[in-house]
């Protein structure tokens, strides 16, 4: 007797949808599916702000040093300057020997703040919002794997902020991503001192070196029902402070059914963070329309607040291909980055 091949269908995978009923128990996406590393090698994330690393890198630094970008000309100091650096055109015009300085090329340091509050453990399509955020970190991480670039992570739980130091190289990035994926899921109604605003503040305060900052969150403040874009959300002020010295990318992760309120009949709806519990008739068309309109206004407010804070804004959805969305963003970003990240008056670029 030969062994019958198993024709049974593979076990049903509900994916992230179960997070609608209870908090997920583990990550909903494996490490190797986070980002296509090879495909991303040809893309480059535009860095417009000057950096202050201490290694030689591929990005424009803040201070003079060996590099490719020309800076001011200054008088030649015998014995200190290299004769080969004398700027002959300036020397001829002024009859005094001048050398041309260059700006040092520095490595880029990226810090990603990942919001893992219970509201991020939710998703109705393939992945939860938290895992989509990790995928976004992975994608942007692989985009910024130039020479010596370092990538660090901060995980914002309601009760603590975990810091994974910045390290260079793709192995280190894989290590960081694995640790983000295996980070224990925050159970519902966990209370703690940290909100998104506190997390951003913490990142601005601890990571002092200029570089790029990634804030991955759904930008929803529990209990905040404001829709007027002229009213600042709680996190806008720390966001603006962060953008003074850094190039800030805000990755807003949303689920399709946060934008289009689902029709699932009359049922109890609970909030994973607040005490909200209410029976809602989701089959009420008028109510769903109102809800969709209010959500659209809420997202518009988030967009305006991020723009006001001087951060670039990527919206990723759990039902869309995030690599595609980020690639599109990066292509458009090449043209808009220098306008987006204008530093406030009095701060060096």
């Amino acid at each position, binding site marked *: 007797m030969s062994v019958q091949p198993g024709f049974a269908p593979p076990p049903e995978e509900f994916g992230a949808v179960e*997070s*609608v*009923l*209870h*908090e997920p128990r583990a990550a909903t996406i494996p490490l190797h599916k986070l980002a296509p590393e090879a495909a991303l090698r040809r893309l480059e994330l535009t860095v417009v702000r000057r950096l202050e690393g201490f290694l030689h890198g591929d990005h424009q630094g803040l201070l003079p040093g060996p590099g490719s970008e020309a800076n001011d000309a200054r008088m030649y100091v015998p014995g200190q300057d290299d004769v080969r650096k004398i700027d002959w055109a300036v020397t001829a015009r002024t009859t005094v020997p001048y050398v041309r300085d260059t700006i040092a090329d520095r490595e880029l340091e990226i810090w990603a703040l990942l919001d893992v509050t219970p*509201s991020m453990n*939710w998703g109705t399509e393939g992945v939860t*919002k938290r895992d989509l955020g990790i995928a976004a970190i992975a994608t942007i991480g692989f985009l910024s794997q130039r020479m010596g670039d370092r990538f660090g992570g901060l995980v914002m739980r309601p009760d603590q902020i975990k810091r994974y130091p910045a390290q260079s190289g793709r192995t280190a990035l894989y290590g960081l991503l694995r640790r983000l994926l295996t980070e224990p899921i925050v159970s*519902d109604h966990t209370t703690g001192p940290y909100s998104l605003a506190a997390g951003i503040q913490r990142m601005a305060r601890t990571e002092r070196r200029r570089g790029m900052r990634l804030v991955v969150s*759904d930008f*929803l*403040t*529990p*209990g*905040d*029902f404001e*829709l007027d874009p002229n009213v600042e959300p709680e996190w806008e002020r720390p966001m603006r402070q962060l953008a003074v010295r850094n190039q800030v990318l805000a990755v807003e992760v949303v*689920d399709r059914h*946060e934008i289009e309120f689902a029709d*699932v009949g*009359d*049922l*109890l*709806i*609970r*909030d*994973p963070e*607040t005490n*909200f*519990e*209410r*029976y*809602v*008739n989701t089959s*009420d068309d008028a*109510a769903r329309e*109102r*809800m969709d309109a*209010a*959500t659209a206004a*809420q997202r518009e407010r988030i967009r305006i607040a991020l723009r006001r804070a001087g951060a670039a804004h990527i919206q990723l959805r759990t039902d869309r291909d995030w690599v595609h969305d980020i690639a599109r963003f990066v292509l458009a970003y090449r043209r808009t980055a220098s306008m987006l990240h204008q530093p406030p008056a009095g701060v060096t670029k």
Partner: protein
Amino acid sequence: MNFDWFPTFIAPERLWVLLVVPLMIAAYIYLVLRKKKTGMRFTNTAILSRVVPKQSQWRRHLAVALSLAALVALSFAWARPNGIEMVPRERATVVLVIDISQSMQATDVKPTRLDAAKEAALAFVKALPAQYNVSIVSLSGNPNVRLPPTVDRVQAQQAINGLKLQDSTAVGESIYVALNSLLLAPKGTDSTPAPGAIVLLSDGQNTAGRAPSQAAAEAKKQNVPVYTIAYGTDNGHVDLDGKREPVPPDRTLLTNIAQATGGQAFSAESLDQLNKVYNNIRSEVGQTPTKKETTALWAGYGLAFAVVAALAAVSLGTRWP
């Protein structure tokens, strides 16, 4: 504990069906708790709470509670409950004991106590059902049957009008006389005496004869309720031989008699009150509590509960515009 309100049942074994009710309550609570556990998580509830109106839950609970109440009422109806109903008496003998002692000439009740009592007694006798026997007993030191039990109202009116004042008050003795008078009542077609009742109107202290408590015990033994009326005000007085005597009614004595015999005690301080008291006594004497099957009543309760429960369920099911 007093379970007077609780009906007795012809088929009490059918009440076991009530065990379903606690089972259903338990199932309901279990399902409600389970539903609470399996609610949907949603992140953007801050907006949701502003946009979607709050849905009250009381209608669900009301529908369930009323359905269960209907179930209880219908189970009761199925077990054929017996209720107490007041049924008018076919025939009865009422002995009217009227005080004619000297204190009845007091004028605290206008025009005098005796005249007012006569007037009220005449109205009472007139309003009694025609087939009831009436007997009149005068209460003084020497109580007398003025009229043996009879259905002739004209004689009764004459007997009442003919009452004159006499000396002394023998309450206990008058009850014995009234009991004797009941024995004179004509038998009915089935040769049993009509149920009797004594209405005792008195305005003063017992001054002569056997003890009233003894008389009350005797009345109790013969199953004759004594309805007492304490008549007159506390300020009433009479002038006898140039001396002013206060004549307040002895309310405690009369109350004791009424309680001991299963009757009721009243008090009256004017003609109006006396008429009201007589009206009360007439309805007490004229009706008898009877056991009756009240299945329809409980079925009606069940129907009422079911209608309201159905309304609640309908309002849950429909979407109001």
